[in-house]
């Protein structure tokens, strides 16, 4: 290959792609050039000088341009002093010395300089044990110190940069990794350097402090213990921790994580989760996670967890044995058979969901199963034209395009937001079709903000425009966007359901499927890096489709001849008495406002972590284990099936969901429960054709990834965990193995509005069963907020800070008004209320309840 460059490093020859930096080239052949400020995910800055090496370049004869040779025939090299290995790119014939005397001296000097004002409080430092400064000093430091103790800087050691991240000013070595991460990678420049030289410090002025969904990542890449999380700080020493591989349960990205656990006296001798950190998966989350994934885990060891089965006796829920509870549930369900219904959530694992549908369909002969709150349609479309296996957003570049429709990725799937943003910065044409501004707008090539209620129609127009081949100059944004999309070599389309009803989102998936199917030079389906990605509401909504948690589809998308009842009909049936028994697993329809009360149900069983509003009404409550206590698999929005492992022991007497369901099933005439989740998965692989090549072993396979950040190496210590537990497997969409027909998208009349229309938006920190219990992010939870533009506020005669009563379709909620200059004119946005409060884009009424205090003052 012509764009490979060959050089020697300490006499070892290596060939690397053009543009590779010397430090990375050395790393590829296991030669460690130490670095502090350099990080392979960040632009090099050359600030710390620890990576100094000698670099020699081949000499040429000035007259002839010929390479000069030594007497022994080797090329003559010219060495020009020390250079930073992190900023110099390799060149042909280059020779690098990383261990010569001058290099050793320079390195030692830099380390000594850094340590001259370093507190050396390693014995109490969170980073101690996985600290690059410590490691590099051990490896390359002088071993003696000339620290002038009287001149040692004594500065603040507990500076809160907000309630999540603390700064220890003494420990900071001023490498700017944290600042550069916030600016380059996530565009939240809310921390910065202040002052110069020895007075330099990290500061923030945002409100709240260090206002970013990504702040925890800076504590990972900080090469010292200067930045720590309030959650883990002084919590444990790294070497006491036992790692367990996991998958984030909070959104459809499916970030790979590692839970660090410890058995400890202060937790009553229990093994608890001390921290969650990213686990490298370059195809999913690289080496990052968002703060929700990092901090929202305390629900697992919350004292509010259910510990034993509960049975209602004389109107009261009282503790019962498992056998008693399971017998009762099985007996009741069998009694009602086809008048029984089941509602599950997209947070359950594939094993749970598979067993759930099996219990109903095979055990009880009832077809009435659904997700409790199906907010986004299109699963069967995704099964056909979802992104091809092998898709990695990181592979998209110039000439490719990404389309995002009706979704705010920053709030709904943060890691996708980051990776789409980075793709746009690499030259991918980003096209946004949304009802309002989002945090991606800044990076988009084309942004189309449709009028309220016109989302579907806009996509229909886009599809129409994409079909006509014209070269003419198109000054209409939508037309220009259509041209970009259709001409793109690779095209990925994300879609969500913001401002859309379920039916509209379903039609949207079909329209986007058709858009991808347009043949115009490039195939946008059936290939890696092409196809649809649904922004599902939950971590395993995809798995729920795959397992057949749907009234009309069985496992593997097998269409059922006679569909059962869907969630809406089940709720209606519970109220009317047509449904007699209901089994709710991992969902809270009463708390979410989908079900008013237990209606005329004669039997209600709820399987949960907590006594939710629904559970409080139940006849039997079964305590389930959280994801941290058991194994299982989730399938992410890119259809990657990923394994997670048990990290902590079961809480109380709780059991894994699949096991409970199988034990009920056994009592209802099904076979004995499987011994392990892996055997459940074997059953899934048999029933779901898409999963037929997978088992727990194949899901656990790993391969070497770049950059090399985990493990024992000296300079990226404490960064992210190396992935030794599985990269997961993507299942093949139908279009990968055969042609797919166009979809029939129903015509849905667009809405128009006379007064200010309302949509509901999703917030990452929306309050909910899991988030409310995690105290760390308590201050950032979103309470009900209504956001409007200044113009609309004036028209409604409302002002910032007012408490407003928002009435939609007979329901109402009180929300605080936020007037924002960034809000789209002509649209009101409601966030922080139960999902499903507003369906689609709706007419609403706004009435002031309490006048803003700002006004009164």
């Amino acid at each position, binding site marked *: 290959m012509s764009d490979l460059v060959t050089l020697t490093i300490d006499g070892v020859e290596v060939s690397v792609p053009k543009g590779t930096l010397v430090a990375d080239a050395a790393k590829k052949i296991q030669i460690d050039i130490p670095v502090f400020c350099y990080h392979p995910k960040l632009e090099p800055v050359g600030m710390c000088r620890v990576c100094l090496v000698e670099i020699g370049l081949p000499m040429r004869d000035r007259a002839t341009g010929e390479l000069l040779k030594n007497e022994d025939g080797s090329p003559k090299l010219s060495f020009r002093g020390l250079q930073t290995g992190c900023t110099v790119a390799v060149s042909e014939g280059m020779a690098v010395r990383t261990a010569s005397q001058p290099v050793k001296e320079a390195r030692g000097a830099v380390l000594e300089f850094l340590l001259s004002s370093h507190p050396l409080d390693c014995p109490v430092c969170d980073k101690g044990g996985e600290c690059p400064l410590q490691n590099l000093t051990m490896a390359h430091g002088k071993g003696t110190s000339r620290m002038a103790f009287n001149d040692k800087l004594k500065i603040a050691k507990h500076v809160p940069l907000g309630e999540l991240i603390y700064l220890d000013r003494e420990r900071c070595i001023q490498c700017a990794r944290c600042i550069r991460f916030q600016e380059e990678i996530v565009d939240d420049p809310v921390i*910065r350097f202040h002052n110069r030289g020895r007075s330099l410090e990290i500061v*923030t*002025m*945002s409100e709240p402090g260090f206002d970013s969904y990504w702040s925890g990542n800076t504590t990972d890449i900080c090469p010292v213990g200067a930045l720590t999380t309030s959650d883990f700080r002084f919590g444990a020493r790294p070497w006491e921790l036992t790692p367990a591989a996991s998958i984030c349960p909070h959104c459809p990205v499916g970030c790979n994580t590692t839970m660090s656990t410890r058995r400890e006296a202060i937790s009553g001798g229990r093994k608890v989760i001390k921290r969650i950190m990213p686990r490298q998966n370059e195809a999913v989350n690289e080496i990052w996670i968002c703060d929700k994934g990092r901090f929202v885990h305390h629900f697992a060891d919350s004292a509010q967890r259910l510990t034993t089965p509960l049975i209602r006796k004389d109107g009261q829920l009282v503790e019962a044995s498992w056998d008693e509870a399971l017998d009762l549930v099985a007996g009741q369900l069998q009694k009602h058979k086809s008048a029984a219904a089941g509602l599950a959530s997209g947070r359950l694992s594939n094993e749970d969901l598979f067993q759930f549908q099996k219990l109903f369909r095979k055990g009880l002969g009832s077809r009435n199963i659904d997700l409790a709150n199906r907010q986004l349609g299109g699963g069967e479309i995704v099964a056909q034209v979802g992104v091809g296996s092998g898709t990695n957003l990181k592979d998209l570049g110039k000439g490719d395009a990404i389309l995002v429709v009706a979704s705010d990725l920053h709030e709904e799937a943060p890691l996708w937001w980051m990776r789409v943003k980075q793709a746009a910065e690499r030259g991918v044409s980003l096209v946004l079709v949304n009802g309002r501004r989002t945090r991606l707008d800044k990076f988009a090539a084309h942004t189309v903000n449709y009028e309220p209620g016109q989302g579907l129609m806009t996509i229909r127009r886009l599809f129409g425009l994409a079909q006509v081949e014209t070269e003419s100059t198109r000054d209409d944004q939508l037309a220009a966007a259509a041209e970009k999309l259709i001409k793109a070599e690779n095209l990925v389309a994300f879609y969500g359901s913001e401002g859309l009803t379920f039916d509209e989102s379903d039609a949207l998936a079909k329209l986007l499927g058709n858009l991808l199917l347009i043949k115009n030079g490039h195939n946008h389906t059936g290939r890696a890096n092409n196809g649809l990605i649904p922004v599902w509401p939950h971590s395993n909504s995809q798995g729920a489709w795959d397992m057949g948690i749907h009234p009309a589809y069985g496992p593997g998308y097998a269409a059922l001849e006679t569909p059962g009842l869907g969630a809406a009909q089940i709720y209606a049936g519970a109220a009317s008495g047509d449904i007699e028994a209901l089994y709710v697993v991992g969902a809270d329809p009463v708390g979410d406002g989908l079900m008013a009360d237990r209606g005329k149900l004669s039997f209600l069983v709820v399987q949960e972590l907590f006594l939710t509003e629904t559970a409080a009404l139940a006849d039997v409550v079964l305590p389930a284990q959280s994801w941290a206590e058991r194994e299982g698999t989730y399938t992410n929005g890119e259809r990657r099936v990923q394994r997670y492992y048990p990290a902590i022991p079961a809480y109380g007497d709780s059991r894994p969901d699949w096991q409970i369901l199988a034990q009920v099933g056994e009592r209802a005439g099904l076979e004995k429960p499987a011994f392990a989740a892996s055997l459940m998965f074997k059953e899934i692989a048999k029933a779901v054709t898409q999963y037929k090549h997978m088992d727990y072993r194949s899901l656990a396979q790993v391969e070497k990834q770049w950059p090399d950040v985990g493990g024992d190496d000296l300079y990226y210590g404490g960064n992210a965990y190396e992935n030794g537990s599985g990269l997961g497997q993507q299942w093949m969409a139908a279009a990968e193995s055969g042609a797919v027909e166009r979809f029939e998208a129903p015509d849905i009349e667009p809405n128009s509005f006379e007064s200010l229309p309302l949509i509901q938006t999703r917030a990452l920190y929306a309050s909910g069963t899991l988030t409310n219990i995690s105290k760390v992010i308590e201050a950032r939870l979103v309470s009900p907020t209504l956001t409007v533009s200044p113009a609309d506020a004036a028209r409604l005669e409302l002002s910032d800070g007012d408490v407003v009563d928002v009435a939609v379709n007979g329901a109402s909620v009180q929300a605080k008004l936020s007037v924002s200059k960034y809000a789209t004119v002509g649209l009101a946005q409601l966030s922080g209320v139960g999902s499903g409060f507003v369906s689609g884009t709706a007419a609403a009424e706004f009435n002031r309840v309490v006048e803003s205090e700002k006004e009164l003052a």
Partner: protein
Amino acid sequence: MIAEKYAEEIKGIIARFPNKKSAVLPLMHLAQHEYGYMSQEAMREVAEILDLDPTQVLSLSGFYSLYYEEPVGKYVMEICNDLACALRGADQFVDMACRKLDTTVDATTEDGLFTIKTVMCLGACDRAPMLQCNLKFEENLDEGKFDQLLARLREEAVSEQKSPSIVEKIVAYAK
């Protein structure tokens, strides 16, 4: 609010840069002129105008010595005490100046007129000791010349003779 008071000027300054955020330094001068120093509110105002995070403005004001994060007197005397000046008695000069004004480095005199600061090389080493007073160089100083300078400034302050508006200077500079 500088956004309202200097709407025209701000528009003009921003227009001179291909990228809006590049106008941050002149706008910070403008805000400092308006409020006397870079208060937190001043930083937030500049950030708001340019769609920056206030942290970015804070960082710049911390980096450059000509932005003051604490209130200062009407006349800011920045005395160079870097190497060359130090060799020609800058440190003694600073002591003398402080004694004369009955103040300390970085503090402001009670009448609100003078603030003394020490700074790095201002590029006038051959005329040490030297200082800059409200951006104007005063060179080859000694006690006598310093007395004269103080007398002149006190007079100027009383007669309310305004030095040319810094707003004009900023606008001209940004051109």
